[in-house]
């Protein structure tokens, strides 16, 4: 009981401190009535800049040049978004993209299973080999621009309007001939929502568990590139944007992990972890993979 009284005493002191802080800080708030006169520039670009700070600078860096604190942990390294022209004066990669391409094929793409991607690529190469121009065209249209999964998709995290705002901001980072981004008023401003999922049963035979966890490891790395933001194994490339996952198996409850990776925003709306639209099976497989991650106890 003595300890308890002490805790409450502390609270009283704390209360007094709060009172004084409130007392002295508010008048400052009242007198500083200066308006932010500079916010005259394009509101779409301003919105894009804010989103870029929340979701992109860890890899691409505050100036977009590709020097974010996490840049060294993704393979390939993040694209230099200021790339206006190449060394020999040709149009740079970023300058060569259309607004639509940045919007649809980079920020709003669906991640592919590596084998799905290979199949598409093969169909295309086959058609080219057979000199079948028609078939090659069809196959090429299906083949999305090859953006490595190290660059997450934001289709399932940000609203259509927010992704257009990002395009508008990214366009200010390099010289280009693209027309100004013009967002149709019909574009949705609502973020996609993924309600909290019901976790599946975790009862299963041991060999089934091992097999599913193995497939989980495969998609964790090759499809979703979760390791672009998370350390998962000592000595392997892993990002530092999110928590170290090397002890997930000791730390996290399975139901919670399944629900978090299925819809992070349903549990924490402002989290920087993007929703990568895992199917139920994929979420289950990755959860069982994370369950296998343990570190020997340190004493």
């Amino acid at each position, binding site marked *: 009981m003595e300890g308890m009284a002490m805790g409450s005493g502390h609270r*009283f002191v704390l209360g007094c401190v709060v009172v004084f802080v409130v007392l002295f800080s508010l008048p400052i708030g009242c007198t500083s009535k200066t308006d932010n006169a500079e916010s005259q520039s394009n509101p779409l670009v301003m919105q894009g800049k804010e989103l870029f700070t929340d979701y992109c600078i860890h890899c691409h860096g505050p100036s977009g040049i590709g020097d974010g604190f996490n840049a060294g942990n993704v393979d390939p390294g993040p694209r230099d978004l200021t790339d206006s022209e190449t060394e020999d004066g040709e149009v740079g990669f970023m300058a060569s993209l259309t607004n639509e391409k940045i919007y649809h094929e980079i920020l709003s793409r669906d991640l592919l299973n590596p084998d799905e991607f290979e199949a598409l690529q093969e169909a295309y190469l086959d058609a080219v080999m057979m000199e079948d121009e028609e078939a090659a065209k069809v196959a090429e249209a299906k083949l999305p621009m090859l953006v490595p999964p190290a660059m997450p998709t934001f289709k399932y995290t940000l609203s259509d309007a927010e992704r257009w705002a990002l395009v508008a901001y990214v366009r200010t980072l390099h010289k280009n001939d693209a027309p100004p981004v013009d967002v149709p008023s019909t574009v949705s401003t609502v973020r996609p929502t993924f309600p909290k999922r019901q976790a599946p049963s975790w009862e299963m035979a041991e060999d089934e568990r091992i097999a599913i966890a193995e497939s989980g490891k495969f998609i964790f790395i090759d499809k979703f590139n979760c390791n672009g933001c998370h350390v998962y194994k000592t000595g392997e490339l892993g990002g530092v944007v999110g928590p170290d996952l090397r002890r997930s198996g000791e730390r996290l409850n399975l139901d919670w992990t399944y629900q978090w990776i299925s819809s992070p925003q349903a549990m924490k709306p402002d989290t920087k972890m993007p929703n990568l639209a895992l199917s139920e099976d994929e979420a289950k497989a990755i959860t069982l993979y994370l369950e296998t991650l343990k570190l020997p106890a340190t004493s």
Partner: protein
Amino acid sequence: MNLKNLHIRTMLGVTMDIRSIVYQILFAVFFAIGSASFVWSQNGAGSAIALSDVKTLEELAQVGGQLFEGKGQCTQCHSLQGASSDKGPTLDGVGAKLTREFLHESLVKPDAYVYLDFTRVPPAPYAAPMPPTSLAEGEILAVIAYLQQSSGQPVSIELSELK
């Protein structure tokens, strides 16, 4: 709309600074009275249960809640269901997120795994590192029960473990 009102509003504008200071003093006084009476009500033993009298998991969690706010001093750094501090990560839902074993480790060996502040760029440790708790083993179990219960989880502690 009506001229008289407009006039009063401009007058209000002029005297705003003085008035707001008066309001703040009033607010501060009420706040002080409020927190003092809150502390007082916490001290006035009333419904406090002793760990040795615990008969149900419900009561265990209740004792855990008392320890969380009181002796454990957890609310100095953590927010949970209303109590708020951002010196450490929020503990809302932590009883559903973390395993019982890991919760235990977090209290006795907090430096074995340091959870960073992921709102910072780059993520960095919180300014006040979590100290190993001074709570006794039974009290730690009670706090774990409280964290689980307040996360809507079934309590995974057996009463027989309290001996």
